């Protein structure tokens, strides 16, 4: 037997799952340009925790990168409030991780100096606050 309250909760839960599913499909459909640009070195991870575009980019690619960065910022904000840190600190901590383990050889990345580099065989020279 379901009370009115639990019915309402179930409805909301189903709605959320559907919304998440639709959003997931939208990201999956639009993520192609970014993946290709990452492989080309036209887009890369930045030490500040966000994706960046190296040089000029098509409007579609720019829109995809912006969309990902807006979602990243939302996720960083959530974690920051949970942990009592600033959004910038969470983003910097993410940047340490992406530069350590998610930038493959030959891919582009950007450090705090704003210069784009291509990853070689060795590890990336991380900002000092990453090493601890």
């Amino acid at each position, binding site marked *: 037997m379901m009370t009115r309250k639990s019915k309402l909760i179930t409805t909301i839960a189903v709605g959320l799952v559907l919304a998440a599913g639709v959003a997931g499909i939208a990201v999956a459909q639009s993520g192609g340009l970014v993946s290709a640009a990452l492989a080309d070195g036209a887009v890369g991870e930045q030490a500040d925790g966000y994706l960046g575009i190296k040089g000029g980019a098509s409007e579609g690619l720019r829109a995809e990168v912006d969309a990902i960065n807006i979602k990243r910022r939302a996720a960083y904000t959530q974690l920051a409030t949970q942990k009592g840190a600033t959004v910038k600190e969470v983003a*910097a901590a*993410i940047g340490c991780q992406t530069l350590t383990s998610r930038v493959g050889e030959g891919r582009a990345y950007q450090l705090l100096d704003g210069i784009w580099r291509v990853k070689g065989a060795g590890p990336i020279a991380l900002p000092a606050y990453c090493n601890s």
Partner: protein
Amino acid sequence: MKPLLLTNERSGAISGAMKPATLPILSASLAVLAGCVTVKAPDKPIEINLNVNIRQEVIYTLKQDANALITDNPELFPK
């Protein structure tokens, strides 16, 4: 001749008594001046060092959460 001798002895007596008193005062005021100059110097570097230390600690504590966020949201971190 007599008055000249008298004044000479007097002035000698006065300056003899003043010298030991003025020397410590002079050196004391010099020391105070030197103290003032050194107090003013260190101000900025201390604050910068503090900020860097706090930041590094926070980022260290966020390390695991950051990794979890990346693996939990693969759509936000395309490879």
